[in-house]
């Protein structure tokens, strides 16, 4: 926050103050404050679900905030329509630019104000001339008679930016503009953006590519869990520091004693799925918790899904308690002692409109069936009550539809479901995503409790600090291979080292 003071001589073009927004089951923004100066390229980074999209939706007048104000060029809004946002000078350029593809560049630029001759026909010479003239002012050379669908992605993006400027935009939001661009295209786009910046146009630059943030941005705001972690001058920080802010610091650290025994439960031998993961060999002991981490697309996600039977698993040997593991479908995986917690519980983990009770017992209903195929409801209620008490699930009753519970409690219901199958091996994919700090602690305790009971657990996560807290071993995955291993309590098991291993792998690859 110190950096903002040094620039306080300049009057910000945009000030968002204490903006909060809640959606059913999740609080997306918590008192977010963001200011952008004229002629500034302001990076906005954070993991998926950190709140970037919601914040931008608020800025564009698409989403109404529950509290807070938006000040644009001195004009203060507490609620704002999309029209007001555009009139105030906010423009949004998405990753995939939406324009009238089958029309020419000139028609797109002058859409709605095409000059006509006396007979009411469009004066094409004037259209093209005017369009060329306008682009010239921005030093942009594009053949205005070309159809937009014939342009490259970089040109389309630049055209969209120009069009926004012709519409008197003062602040342009660039959302992942480089995602499908080659390096030379990126350079051209960046030069164009920088030239506009010199003319006083402000940009909010959203990207997952952190190097680009350093290349082009003046300041960067880091978001995490719906909050702003900090806003920094880019020249004062480096990539690891930025990642540290993204993955979180200052969160209460949780540690647990190892419950690892000597008995090997889960064996993976040379598991390979071309294009996703290769040569994965692992031995996990009873009560051991291991973490697998890596960049998005490193293959850890596919490994989890593949083991559970949601995706093709590839070839290789898998054994649970010495027995060959051959399950092809999730139900077989449950029966053979392997349970999986999906990343997105709303879509994959829960049946939202159905009650808590049913959500817990879906995989184990067979065991509850008594006479004439009917479910023993009393026994079912007892089991579910046990989990509600044991996992401290806060719900008015077993009959409450799960989607009315808070994020943390929903996640506990998924845990209850998995625990009810009495698994030998548990695979958790981002188990703490979208839950508050207190629920996180509860979830760690649940993981600990299950490990004490002898469950071998794999946690696939990008929350490095959390992994250090709960895991006996952390494995780093790079391009589908396990490349580094960090043991609990070892000297080199630090967030910095692990981050370096994650990032280092990426550098080797490129």
């Amino acid at each position, binding site marked *: 926050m110190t950096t903002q003071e040094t620039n306080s001589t300049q009057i910000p073009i945009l000030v968002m103050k204490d903006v*909060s927004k*809640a*959606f*059913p*089951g*999740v*609080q997306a923004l*918590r*008192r977010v404050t963001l200011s952008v100066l004229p002629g500034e390229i302001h990076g906005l980074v954070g993991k998926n679900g950190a709140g970037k999209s919601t914040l931008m939706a608020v800025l564009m007048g698409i*989403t*109404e905030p*529950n*509290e807070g104000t938006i000040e644009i060029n001195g004009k203060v809004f507490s609620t704002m329509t999309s029209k007001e946002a555009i009139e105030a000078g906010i423009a949004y350029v998405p990753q995939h630019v939406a324009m009238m593809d089958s029309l020419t560049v000139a028609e797109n630029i002058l859409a709605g104000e095409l000059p006509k001759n006396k007979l009411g026909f469009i004066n094409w010479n004037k259209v093209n001339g005017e369009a060329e003239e306008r682009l010239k002012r921005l030093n942009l050379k594009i053949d205005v008679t070309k159809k937009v669908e014939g342009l490259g992605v970089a040109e389309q993006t630049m055209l969209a930016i120009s069009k926004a400027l012709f519409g008197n935009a003062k602040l342009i939001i660039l959302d992942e503009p480089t995602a499908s661009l080659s390096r030379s295209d990126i350079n051209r786009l960046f030069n164009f953006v920088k030239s506009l910046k010199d003319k006083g146009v402000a940009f909010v630059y959203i990207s997952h590519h952190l190097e680009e943030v350093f290349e082009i941005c003046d300041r960067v705001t880091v978001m995490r869990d719906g909050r702003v972690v900090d806003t920094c001058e880019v020249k004062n920080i480096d990539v690891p520091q930025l990642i540290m802010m993204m993955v979180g610091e200052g969160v209460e650290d949780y540690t647990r004693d190892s419950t690892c025994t000597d008995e090997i439960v889960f064996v993976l031998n040379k598991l390979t799925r071309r294009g996703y993961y290769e040569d994965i060999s692992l031995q996990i002991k009873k009560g051991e918790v291991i973490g697998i981490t890596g960049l998005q697309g490193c293959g850890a996600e596919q490994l989890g899904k593949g083991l*559970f039977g*949601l995706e093709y698993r590839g070839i290789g040997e898998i054994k649970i308690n010495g027995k060959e593991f051959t399950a092809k*479908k*999730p*139900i077989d*995986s*449950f029966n053979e002692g392997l349970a*999986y917690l*999906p990343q997105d519980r709303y*879509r*994959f*983990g*829960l*049946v*939202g*409109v*159905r009650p808590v009770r*049913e959500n817990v*017992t*879906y*995989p184990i*209903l*067979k065991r509850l*069936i008594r006479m004439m*195929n*009917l*479910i023993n*409801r009393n026994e079912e209620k007892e089991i579910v009550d046990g989990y509600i008490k044991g996992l401290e699930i806060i719900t008015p009753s077993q009959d409450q*539809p799960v*989607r*009315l519970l*808070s994020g943390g409690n929903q996640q506990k219901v998924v845990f209850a*479901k998995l625990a009810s199958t009495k698994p030998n091996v548990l695979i958790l994919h981002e188990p703490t995503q979208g839950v508050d700090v207190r629920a996180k602690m509860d979830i760690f305790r649940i993981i600990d409790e299950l490990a004490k009971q002898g469950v071998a657990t794999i946690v696939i996560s990008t929350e490095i600090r959390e992994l250090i807290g709960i895991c006996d071993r952390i494995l780093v995955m790079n391009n589908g291979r396990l490349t580094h291993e960090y043991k609990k309590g070892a000297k080199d098991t630090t967030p910095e080292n692990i981050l370096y291993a994650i990032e280092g792998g990426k550098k080797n690859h490129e």
Partner: protein
Amino acid sequence: MKFKSTRFVSMILDNLIWLLVAFALIIFSSLSPSFRAPYNLVNILNRTAALGMLVIGQAFAMMSGNFDLSSESGLGLTAMVAGLFLASVTNGGLGFEVSPIVAILLMVVVGLTIGLINGFLITRLRMNNLIVTIAMLMILRGLVYIISPGATASFFPDSFNWLGAGALFKIPQTKGFLAIPVPTVFIILAFIIAHIITRYTQFGRNIFAVGSNPVAAKDAGIDTDRIIRNVYLISGFCMAVAGLLAAGRLDSATPRTGEGLIFPVQAAAVVGGVSLFGGRGTMIGAFGGFALWSILDAGLSILKVSPFWIEASRGLLLLFAVALDAFKVKGMHRQALEETLSTSHIGRKDTNIVID
């Protein structure tokens, strides 16, 4: 305070169908002595029992997040197949005059085959359930005309007609007897069985899971395709039973038997609280919707309301029901949002919450 009131409102909404049923019964009874006569009351469900069977099949399909629009033609086809095999040549049959048991078995086989085909096309070939069953609606109706061909088969053995037109027992009255019709009792029993299946068996649970979130259902180890196939088999079976009820009641099978039932079937299920979006609703509710439909049908015709108005009022009822469903979903969202807000620092001070 407010939470309590929303719970109360949602309880009323959940049971609204029975309030409507009671309301309709009271209104019609007070307006017309012939409506409140015991003879009429026991016959309300008798006349519409075939519709009721289709409602059961449809409710199963809708709970699993699917539709089965082919059911009215399935009813027509099973009835016609039985008619052709039962009736003599002079009465429009093929002259086999098979025993009623064989005819009923044939009907069930035809019904299950329809369900099998529907389920196969939808789960194996991944075709859209709406289009598949609309296509089947046309194909099956065409088949009825082809095999009949266009003629009516009638005069069936009494034992075949028993389910659709029989009297279970007769209660002596001052003037003659009050006969309790078999279909009335049968359809109530059928709904009870359907209720037990949906509520108290694993299969029933799985139907709801598949209906509300097929992906999560799969992750929970449910074979979603098998559930859907079984649902269509059940629907096919219901068509056969409905065909038996309809043919027995009329003592004949015409090429048009069952025509125009599909929208009342949908409407009754939706009015009874079975969600169009799958995963929600109960068989008891569906029974309520079916009963309300039957009461309106009987009541309005006894009151000699113009058939044009009857049609319009049905449409209004359907609109009302769909609006109610949408309202319920919105209410659930709102409640979830309020609970999130009340646990967050924002609190529930914002009264104009926009539900996205």
